[in-house]
């Protein structure tokens, strides 16, 4: 560690003081200062900040069904502002008064129970940082319909600090019978979206959360309570949770048979693919952006995550995957959470192809699109975690397509 020489520090502060004195003695400010806005009950972001979720074209006849995407390219650190968390709704966002909302636990239990929001807050609470990702994130990358910016290609993923109660405490109160192997979780949205969850996950790290980034979870994220299954595909993290039906078998619901299943070349479809595999994306410089200046020093930064644990390593290539260098990881250590990576880059002002690949703590390495296609074929639709490439051009523009294509 370098130590600053105290005598040198004195000299420095003396210099700064003199400079300030000189400024005070100079003429009055060019423009008079204005008194700013008064105190307010609820803060809002600067009027100069315009970042919003990417929404689909408004021509749909069913606007309550669909998804909006987090503008990952505008994010700092690892937390997604709650108002920019991605949405995926199947029948709109219900307006639920917690006074009228109950969670029912029944089925293979000794004592069926109901809980109100206030009841959940009587349990010892836990707060953990976890990502949630829709398994359809990056779906169009399979077909070669590449996302033009990080929101479009990877924005169905967000990361929050979630606060709630471990599901196992509620299940213990209800006394689960030995033959119970699954729990059917049902949401309070209009379509009562339902998924079957293996009991082992609920007895492991599953939470019922009511808090998100220091405030009650937003209606779009399941107010007043949602299931949070760290690292598992977003659809299983039942929003507006109203019922847990403890069972010996899965219910084979629409959203675990007709949807969220992946077709293989032989016509068989994979089912119950819960874990999100290690993934990463460079968020700056990225598609849709322009290098802010000419050749010189910049930072390449992005996000990595894995549903199987911590991110162990992220490598970055600036030459189309020929050579790779380790990026620095910010605060590595949160499991099943976004991890910010960074690497300084001396851009020579020429064309470059940027990409990142993540390795998680199980040793799993994020594959390329070609490797995924070879293993799974083109009919596979969900659970795509392939490497994303951005192309920097000599004019400073950054694109999702290779130059000359």
């Amino acid at each position, binding site marked *: 560690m370098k130590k600053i020489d105290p005598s040198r520090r004195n000299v420095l502060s003396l210099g700064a003081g003199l400079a300030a004195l000189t400024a005070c003695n100079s003429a009055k400010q060019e423009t008079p200062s204005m008194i700013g806005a008064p105190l307010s009950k609820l803060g809002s972001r600067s009027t100069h900040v315009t970042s919003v979720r990417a929404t689909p074209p408004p021509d749909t006849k069913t606007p309550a069904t669909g998804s909006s995407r987090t503008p990952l390219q505008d994010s700092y650190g690892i937390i997604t502002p709650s108002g920019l968390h991605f949405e995926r709704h199947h029948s709109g966002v219900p307006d639920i008064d917690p006074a009228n909302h109950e969670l029912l636990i029944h089925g293979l239990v000794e004592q069926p129970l109901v809980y109100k929001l206030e009841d959940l807050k009587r349990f010892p609470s836990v707060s953990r940082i976890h990502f949630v990702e829709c398994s359809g994130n990056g779906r169009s990358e399979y077909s070669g319909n590449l996302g033009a910016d990080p929101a479009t290609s990877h924005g169905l993923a967000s990361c929050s600090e979630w606060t709630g109660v471990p599901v196992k*405490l509620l299940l*213990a109160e209800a006394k689960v019978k030995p033959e119970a192997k699954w729990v059917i979780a049902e949401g309070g949205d209009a379509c009562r979206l339902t998924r079957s969850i293996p009991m082992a996950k609920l007895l492991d790290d599953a939470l019922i959360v009511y808090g998100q980034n220091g405030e009650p979870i937003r209606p779009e994220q399941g107010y007043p309570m949602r299931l949070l299954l760290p690292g598992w595909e977003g659809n299983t993290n039942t929003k507006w949770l109203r019922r847990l039906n403890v069972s010996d*078998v899965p*219910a084979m*619901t629409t959203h675990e048979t007709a949807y969220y299943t992946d077709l293989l070349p032989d016509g068989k479809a994979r089912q119950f693919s819960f874990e999100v595999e290690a993934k990463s994306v460079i968020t700056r410089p990225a598609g849709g952006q322009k290098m802010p200046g000419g050749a010189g020093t910049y930072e390449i930064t992005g996000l990595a995550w894995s549903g199987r644990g911590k991110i162990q390593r992220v490598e970055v290539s600036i030459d189309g995957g020929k050579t790779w260098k380790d990026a620095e990881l910010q605060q590595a250590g949160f499991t099943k959470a976004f991890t910010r990576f960074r690497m300084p880059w001396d851009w020579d002002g020429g064309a470059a192809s940027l990409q990142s690949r993540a390795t998680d703590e199980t040793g799993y390495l994020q594959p390329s699109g070609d490797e995924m296609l070879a293993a799974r074929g083109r009919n596979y639709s969900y659970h795509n975690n392939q490497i994303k490439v951005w192309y920097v051009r000599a004019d400073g523009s950054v694109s999702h397509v290779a130059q000359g294509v």
Partner: protein
Amino acid sequence: MSGRMGACRMLRRAFSIAVLWSVAALGQQARIGKPAGEDKIKAMDITVFPDGRGLPAGGGTAAKGKDIFKEKCAVCHNDQGQGREGQYPSLVGGKGTINTPKPVKTVGSYWPYATTVFDYVRRAMPYDQPGTLQADETYSLVGFVLNLNGIVGENDVVDKDTLPKVKMPNRDGFVPDARPDVKAKR
């Protein structure tokens, strides 16, 4: 001295909290949840399992479902369940396409259980008025959709006994998650 007492008190408190929660965890008795009666469970439980558990009394036929479909479903799914304008999913066809470059996934070609159709229609359809269909209507609509796909006859009775016995064409089309399956080269 008082600091030490304080530490002891904290330790005691931590210990009693631990005991409190381990007792709860052992399930001696529910300390926070309120017992739920049969009526509440009956009112909220709409899950239908592949073996037919959860299916209500009543029944219907495809013949009876035709007019109900026209009235309540065709606005989106079209008269013969073929969907509309690429926005509303088709409920028919696609048989034999699942292992081709252009798979068409429908109730007939892809869905493995007929009970799922009942469960989904009752909880989620019609799209703008979910939860409004009576049991008989739902059975008839399920019959109509299955009949469009050539799976049941027009006058076959669809009820809690017959529906679980219906074998869907793609019943054996699903396999468990086999990931991690892609080995990337470094």
